[in-house]
């Protein structure tokens, strides 16, 4: 067990900042470090780092999930990893002009649900490299992968496939 040196308590370290005296309101912070495990979904995230987009195929009923899960919702059997097609279409989209605090600096950004031919479910991603005004349902898209993986789902995004 590590003993914290005195005065390292993050709550004690920061100076009190008073926002109001009546009612008494203080500025306060709350930070947590996690050891986040992807557990049974690990191969998906390692796949992204190798430029592979992996879905899950049920070993029993053959249901094909674009967003992975290790067990089938339809029949309860285990799934296997299977590469998703390298082309897809936009099932639906939105252009976000506001967002959660963490993503405000990235606005406007385009969210899409991606549909793959022959796959039963969809995949949520970002669409980049496009004028937001031009985005349409049915637009053909393809995945792109981060050169420097962050080992998050943002290691993959989609771009329009040039027409003609």
């Amino acid at each position, binding site marked *: 067990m590590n003993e914290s040196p005195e005065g390292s308590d993050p709550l004690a370290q920061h100076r009190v900042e008073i926002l109001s005296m009546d009612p008494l309101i203080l500025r306060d912070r709350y930070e947590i470090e996690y050891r986040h495990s992807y557990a049974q979904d690990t191969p998906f995230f390692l796949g992204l780092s190798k430029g592979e987009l992996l879905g899950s195929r049920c070993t029993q009923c053959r249901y094909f999930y674009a967003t992975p899960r290790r067990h089938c919702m339809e029949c309860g059997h285990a799934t296997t990893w299977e590469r998703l097609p390298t082309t897809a279409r936009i099932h639906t989209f939105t252009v976000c002009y506001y967002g*959660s605090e963490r993503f405000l600096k*990235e606005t406007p950004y385009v969210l899409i649900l991606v549909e793959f031919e022959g796959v039963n*479910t969809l995949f949520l991603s970002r669409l980049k490299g496009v004028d937001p005004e031009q985005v349409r349902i049915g637009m053909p898209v393809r995945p792109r992968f981060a050169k420097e993986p962050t080992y998050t789902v943002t290691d993959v995004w989609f771009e329009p496939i040039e027409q003609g």
Partner: protein
Amino acid sequence: MRPVYLISGGVTKFAKAHPEKDFRLMVKEAYDYALRDIPALTPDMIDGAVGSYFSDHFTRQLKAASMVQDYLGLCPKPSKRIEGGGATGGLCLQSAWEAIASGRMECCVAFGFETMSRVSTWKGNEFIALASDTNFDFPIGGFYTGYYAMMVQRHMYEFGTTVEQMAMVSVKNHINALYNPYAQKAKRLTIEQVRQAPMVATPLTMEDICTMSDGAAVCILASERIASRVCDRPVHITGVGSGSDTMRMADRPHGKVLLLPHEQESDYATLRYPGVHSFRGGRMAAKLAYHMAGIQDPREELSFIELHDAYTSSEIQTYEDLGLCKYGEGGSFVESGIPFMPGIDYGLSLPQQGRLPVNPSGGLLACGHPVGATGLMQAVFALWQLQGAIEKHLGNGMLQVSRPRRGLIHSHAGTGTYITVTILEAVT
């Protein structure tokens, strides 16, 4: 199961912020209001309580419901906390119903609250977005308005729903709230003003989405024995239903519609369901509640509805889930005027105005959405409607539905992951 009655309720004013009150005091105000309405109920007749609040992040206090329990003087009676995202309040009400129906309690308090003002609006949106898959959804740009925007884009694509139809919902609910002193954001709006408001996530503008709020609500439920002793006009809870769907919208299947008693499979020969345009969990909740209440055709057998309009689009989607019209007809349903209040001027042409009012209170869009309180607030407004007591509690009778017999309340979480439907009936 034995009959369960809603015998009293109270709501605080919903507001952007109540910095002078913590969650305990907000609930206490709503609780005392509810007790004053039925003075014959003494504290010793209350057997226990169920508390509801959505987010430990917003509250910054784990086990906050225990602090409400002691503040209300209800220790050492039974208590627990219910959490189910946006449906927290609806689930809490149903949990209290279960306590009475099972015979475990004779009288149970359902209380709910949320204090959302203690962080900025965009941090608050982040907390809410953490109620989406934090491995696969949140990191992409987690934002609930974005999720609902994607759903309605598909609804528009499938069914031809328009942004003007969505704006009509905003006009309706904000104008209704002009007569509800508990509402946070009452105002007269036009379709043009809704569309010209700042765009949040296409096609939803600031006037298509509800705001964050501080507030609390309390319901008191009882058995027939207690209800008949302490309450002149108890309201009978005749149907409860709930449903669920996958946490990730991306995982929703495309199959057959869950049919209600007044529908046929041929109504939906080509529709792939639910996809992301409809809420299968809402349909399941309605189906179960209608079955328990003996409702064959909700279009003819309901007097009013208070539903979870976190977005104008989700009100339109919910008309369909509840079977008020067929899937795909939610847009034309609002244009018909059916879900508007009679006797209020909305500045719109509404051929069938007021046949089945939806969100007479102003709904979440105009009342606000202090998550843990919201589903209970709907129950309180439904109680007052069915008691014919809107004027007594709101100070004016503009929102009183004429001779209401049966009301429906609907509470909804996530992108449709938990949904409750509860049917309440006036006792004649």
